[in-house]
């Protein structure tokens, strides 16, 4: 699949058809095409509108709490005995993860477009909570589609969404996880095109979603780049982030893509191992295909039927990945590696005890990779890791696995 020539800049995608190399595109039903074109047009205008950017920045500062700190993890660095480790602390954002960056941006777009109803899909519930939050803040009714299986295993987030005034609709079709919730949200959108804005939570889906979600999340990498230059006077040697759909990862990667000396590492959910189907390592163990509006790496069988993945982290439990990651993989600019459930759980506990930070299980995957790599690096080298979410939502899952009573 290496048909893509190396470009002058790694940050120039997508092209006007929404493609990153062979990935991306607009694979949607005709009903949605006019909406997607309208969204693209509005996004082009908003991007260059100083008033829009000013409102976005103001909400970033006063509502989300930006900039998030870049924190030197001194004890973890000492413990691992190699490279210096910095965390970009997205878990300190309002609602507890990076998801809010994108939701604030998209709700402002929805408002501009005159839409009056918000729909969203959610897996672990983080994006659902962030969507319900911004819908409450801007006074929109909000419907969140969530797989019935996830509704059960993420009860606290379901309650949060309801408190915020959102309607949570459990999806029983398929296996009742994130991909089924996304199918259902797309069906809602097809049916209610006139008044409804679909707030997609990850850097995937039909063009322009991968681009606009990336742009809203790139605030992470922009800040991190400035912050590390201010503290260390130089760029990091490595940037690491966990990848499910990949919005936190593309957010921190993108501003570093043209910095030649910065190694980019995305961490996929290896689940219970890559041999069978109990993982979500779309790039490491999947193949290119077309789902949910874009071409990208997918978990699928020989007949092109999509497989259900598995990860201990509900946020990484998705059989695809954002198209820009597929592109960065194919041209060799970023490296994607799997981390198993158990490694992530171990890393979760290490961070909790050494730094007093309870991370979400998603960034615990990135952390496990840091734990593998840092000791092999020199002490004057630097790793920046995206600590994309806090772990409060995961304590029930972890307690169950560790056999603890709550």
């Amino acid at each position, binding site marked *: 699949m290496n048909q893509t020539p190396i470009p002058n800049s790694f940050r120039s995608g997508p092209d006007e058809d929404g493609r990153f190399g062979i990935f991306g595109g607009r694979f*949607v039903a*005709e009903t949605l*095409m006019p909406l997607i074109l309208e969204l693209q047009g509005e996004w082009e205008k908003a991007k260059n509108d100083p008033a829009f950017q000013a409102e976005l920045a103001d909400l970033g500062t006063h509502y989300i709490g930006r900039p998030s700190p870049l924190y030197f993890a001194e004890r973890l660095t000492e413990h691992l005995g190699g490279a210096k480790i910095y965390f970009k602390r997205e878990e300190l954002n309002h609602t507890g993860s990076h998801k809010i960056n994108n939701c604030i941006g998209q709700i402002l777009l929805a408002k501009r477009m005159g839409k009056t109803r918000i729909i969203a899909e959610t897996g672990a519930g983080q994006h659902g909570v962030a969507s319900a939050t911004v819908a409450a803040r801007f006074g929109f009714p909000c419907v969140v589609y969530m797989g019935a299986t996830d509704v059960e295993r993420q009860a606290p987030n379901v309650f949060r969404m309801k408190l915020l005034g959102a309607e949570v609709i459990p999806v029983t079709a398929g296996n009742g996880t994130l991909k089924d919730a996304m*199918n259902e949200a797309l069906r809602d959108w097809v049916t209610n095109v006139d008044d409804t804005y679909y707030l997609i939570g990850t850097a995937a889906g039909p063009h322009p979603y991968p681009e606009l979600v990336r742009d809203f999340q790139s605030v992470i990498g922009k800040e991190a780049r400035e912050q590390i230059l201010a503290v260390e006077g130089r760029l990091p040697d490595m940037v690491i982030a966990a990848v499910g759909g990949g919005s936190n990862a593309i957010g921190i990667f993108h501003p570093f893509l043209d910095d030649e000396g910065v190694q980019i590492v995305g961490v996929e959910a290896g689940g219970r191992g890559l041999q069978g189907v109990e993982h979500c390592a779309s790039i490491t163990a999947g193949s290119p295909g077309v789902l949910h509006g874009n071409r990208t790496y997918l978990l699928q069988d020989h*007949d*092109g*039927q999509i497989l259900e993945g598995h990860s201990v982290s509900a946020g990484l439990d998705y059989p695809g990945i954002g198209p820009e990651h597929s592109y960065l993989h194919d041209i060799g600019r970023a490296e994607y590696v799997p981390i198993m459930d158990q490694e992530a759980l171990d890393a979760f506990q290490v961070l909790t005890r050494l730094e007093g930070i309870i991370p979400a299980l998603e960034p615990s995957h990135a952390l496990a990779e840091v734990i593998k790599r840092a000791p092999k690096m020199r002490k004057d080298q630097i790793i920046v890791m995206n600590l994309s979410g806090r772990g409060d939502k995961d304590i029930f899952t972890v307690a169950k696995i560790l056999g603890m009573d709550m």
Partner: protein
Amino acid sequence: MTARMDKRFAALKAEGRPALVTYFMGGDPDFETSLGIMKALPGAGSDIIELGMPFSDPMADGPVIQMAGQRALKAGQTLGKTLELAAKFRETDSDTPIVMMGYYNPIYVYGVDKFLDDVLAAGIDGLIIVDLPPEMDDELCIPALAKGINFIRLATPTTDDKRLPAVLKNTSGFVYYVSMTGITGSALPDTTKISGAVERIKGHTDLPVCVGFGVKTADHAKAIGAAADGVVVGTAIVAQIAGSLTKDGKAGPDTIASVATLVKGLSTGVRAARLVAAE
């Protein structure tokens, strides 16, 4: 464009009635039963057959069709077997046009060139691929047209006059007009709205326009057929199949016969359609 499709529409025009286009899911509830259903359709009055290709994530379909796809996949249906289904049907019927309908990913994974060769070899006349809008024509539409296979496009109420020419540009065979609220709607469709939409599309093309609008009964078929060149029935047939199955989802004793009965009823509606229009 395939002779079979053009011949069929020409014959219907001479007869002065709209086409009955029937959809079912290939491999639902199993290969043999769905072959039996397919073979029974022309005799029951179906003029054109839409053969559904099962996909795990049919994001533009309602739950009835999604469940049919899941039954088919569970029974071992693959894209290869759906092509085989069409080829077997062709052994005994060389006149009824077949249109394959589904999503792009199984075709992409199968390989576009190999797929189109096998489509031709199986005697299939056209393709409706839900998630390939005109913006994606290079993927499959252009290669299909180059081989003489019809590429049938969906037009919807959101397809405005500005967009229609782009949608119709590489469309052949017929145009499939779908109402977005029709999937689950059970109310009798508003025929004046439909005839308006059909006229709007006909202002841009000479192709026949077939309408899918949640048609369930002969009366629906009659009402819509008065305004269009064809009436598409999908969910009602698939629901009939689902209702005829045994508790464990296997084919029941009257699965094929009950589908034939339903289609016969719909076909009387289609055949009475233009009489109404003339009144």
